[in-house]
């Protein structure tokens, strides 16, 4: 086993002491305490290890250690057919499975030259936006719990239950759907689905207002999140941030608008970007605000889709799916707007086989989390919890 002696902040040495023992050595200043916010911790949102060097309550360095949930997604992709990869994309970001499948379908369809029926496009957008709302509810609820507000979490989950029942009705599963297939859908939506979704939207609009008043406008919550973890816009872009993180730093960038796919160009919605009146631009409160305001926009999108959707006379969701999915030779980088940012798939195909040569998932959380080390310097320990909560990571996507 080689010794990698690397210079830089926090030099690390990896040595193998014996057959079963590997030692990872880090230099430690004597007054600082090494605190492992270990893989098991209530507020790291999954199995993430943050090794913090603390000086009292102030964190001098917090380094994330990943890989606890690595399930070899990319290696699997090279050994199975294109349609069989769809369930694996669900399991990456398990809170927004529909959006992940959507991104993958868009990437492969670019290489396929297939014409997607209009009704399929609208259904895809409806389930993707429903899943976006569900994902944001989890993000907001768990952010409240991290800061000590236990009740908004339960309100969020009560409403998320309605969404999960709707998605279960449409696809057969509550969380890991396998619904959006390459070239179409696995099955059509049930007959009354649109009516029920409209009822849900009408029920949910006042609940959003109540949630806003309970959590977002709460004085203590604002004090805990305002001015914490500020990320300037140009640094955020350089770190590769996207989605609500980038919009929270004041950059008006949404892939649904700037690199549009599916029927989003026909839909009317705004991209919320905080302007510094209620929060400081780039802080945790801005990022939280973006997610809270995006829920309203998603509701608007769903209503428009229900109105514009063509009827189901003679509709077969699998009509456009070729018998064997054999994309032409070439490469593609296709991306979509995940609730957490930009989910991109770099797919390399050799034109002859039904399995991809290389399928890399560019996950939003992985890139968002890489800024953690610099963002947490000099913060207090409770503020570290607030920052992690505002990044909204899902370890399934970070580790793939």
């Amino acid at each position, binding site marked *: 086993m080689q010794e990698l002696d690397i210079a830089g902040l926090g030099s690390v040495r990896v040595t193998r002491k014996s057959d079963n023992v590997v030692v990872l050595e880090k230099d430690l200043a004597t007054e600082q305490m090494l605190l492992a916010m270990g893989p098991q911790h*209530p507020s790291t949102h999954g199995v993430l290890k943050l090794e913090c060097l603390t000086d009292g309550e102030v964190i001098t360095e917090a380094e994330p250690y990943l890989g606890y949930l690595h399930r070899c997604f990319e290696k699997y992709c090279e050994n199975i057919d294109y349609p069989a990869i769809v369930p694996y994309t669900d399991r990456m970001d398990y809170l927004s499975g529909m959006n992940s499948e959507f991104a993958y379908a868009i990437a492969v369809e670019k290489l396929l030259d297939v014409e997607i029926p209009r009704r399929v496009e609208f259904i895809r957008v409806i389930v993707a936006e429903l899943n976006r709302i569900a994902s944001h509810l989890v993000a907001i609820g768990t952010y409240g719990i991290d800061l000590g507000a236990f009740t908004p979490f339960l309100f969020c989950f009560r409403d998320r239950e309605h969404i999960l029942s709707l998605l279960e009705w449409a696809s057969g599963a509550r969380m890991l759907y396998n619904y959006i297939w390459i070239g179409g859908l696995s099955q059509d939506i049930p007959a009354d689905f649109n009516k029920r979704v409209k009822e849900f939207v009408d029920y949910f609009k006042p609940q959003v207002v109540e949630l806003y008043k309970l959590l977002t406008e709460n004085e203590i919550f604002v004090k805990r999140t305002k001015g914490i973890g500020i990320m300037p816009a140009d640094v955020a872009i350089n770190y590769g941030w996207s989605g609500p993180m980038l919009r929270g730093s004041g950059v008006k960038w949404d892939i649904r608008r700037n690199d549009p796919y599916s029927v989003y160009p026909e839909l009317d919605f705004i991209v919320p970007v905080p302007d510094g009146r209620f929060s400081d631009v780039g802080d945790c409160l801005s990022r939280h605000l973006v997610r809270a305001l995006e829920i309203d926009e998603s509701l608007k999108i769903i209503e428009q889709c229900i109105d514009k959707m063509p009827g189901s006379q003679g509709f077969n969701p699998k009509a456009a799916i070729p018998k064997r999915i054999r994309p032409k030779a070439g490469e593609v980088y296709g991306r979509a707007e995940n609730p957490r940012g930009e989910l991109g798939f770099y797919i390399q195909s050799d034109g002859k086989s039904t399995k991809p040569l290389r399928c890399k998932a560019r996950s939003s959380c992985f890139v968002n989390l890489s800024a953690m080390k610099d963002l947490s310097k000099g913060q*207090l320990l409770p503020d570290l*919890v607030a920052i992690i909560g505002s990044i909204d990571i899902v370890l399934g996507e970070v580790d793939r």
Partner: protein
Amino acid sequence: MNLTALSHFSIPFLMGNSLNAWSEALVGFAPMGLPLGLVILAAIPLVFIAVYALTYGVYGERKISAFMQDRLGPMEVGKWGILQTLADILKLLQKEDIVTSSADKFLFVIGPGVLFVGSFLAYAVLPFSSAFIGANLNVGLFFAIGIVSIEVVGILAAGWGSNNKWSLYGSVRSVAQIVSYEIPAAIALLCGAMMAGTLDMQKINILQSGSWGFAHFFLFQSPIAWLPFLIYFIASLAEVNRAPFDIPEAESELVAGYFTEYSGMKFAFIFLAEYASMFMVSAIISIVFLGGWNSPLPNIGYFSLNDMTNGPVWGVFWIITKGFFFIFVQMWLRWTLPRLRVDQLMYLCWKVLTPFAFVSFVLTAIWEIYVR
């Protein structure tokens, strides 16, 4: 025990007399020269605490939080889950008592004990009615404020003895919080003592009795009495580590703060001590500002409600009701508000509550000297 000369109570007086006679008899009950009667007498508040903590404390918290969160809470064990807490206590009793191998054994074991003792000793000076008080000290209020500080030693012992960095964080934060918030709490209570002119808890209650019911309570006797009342309420939340000041046991940051490593009966001790101190501060605030065991109902013309609802046994009912009301408010606050960060907590204490406490002290003094 104590005899109180409240001669204007009639029928309830008889009940009180029997209560007094009964407690006198117990004092004399000393088979084989052992002071068994006194022990039984001293144990009554402890029994009350245990029963209250089992029923209202834990069960009430679970049910109240459930209803606030749009769910049902415990429903399976007993009708509406009433026996849930009993089941939990039985479970905790038979759990393995783990002492981590690298823990400092003496401190680890002593911690919950000292915490428990500190919380329960204050019950000695709480007057449960005109006829029943554990120890009628003439510095009762001072004793009640002071004895709670023993908790700090227990918390430090528990946190350090666990040999766990997260527990250490929790206990250090808790000590800082409790020690700082004692100051505005004490000053606010001093305002109440100023209005009474004495530190004796029983006399403070007697001074708030009268035929107009709640109009005699100190809260309504002075135009700025609401200020020390509010200050003491907030400071007492910090004293018992309740949200929004529960940073020492911040569940989402420190798992369980200073009692992360405890299991079984030790954990139950700490838990019960927390609920006991919740009731204690509620009782203190209702004694000093809201009349303690006095009835709030006034005598309106023909309906002499005050006379009908006052008495030694009625007194127990009133003080417990008022205590439970404040506990309900504490639980309500816990499940609504996020928690304050450590430095915001300290800022609130030293830069907001303490100056206001001093201001209220001066204003109360002016009112007492020049107006009354």
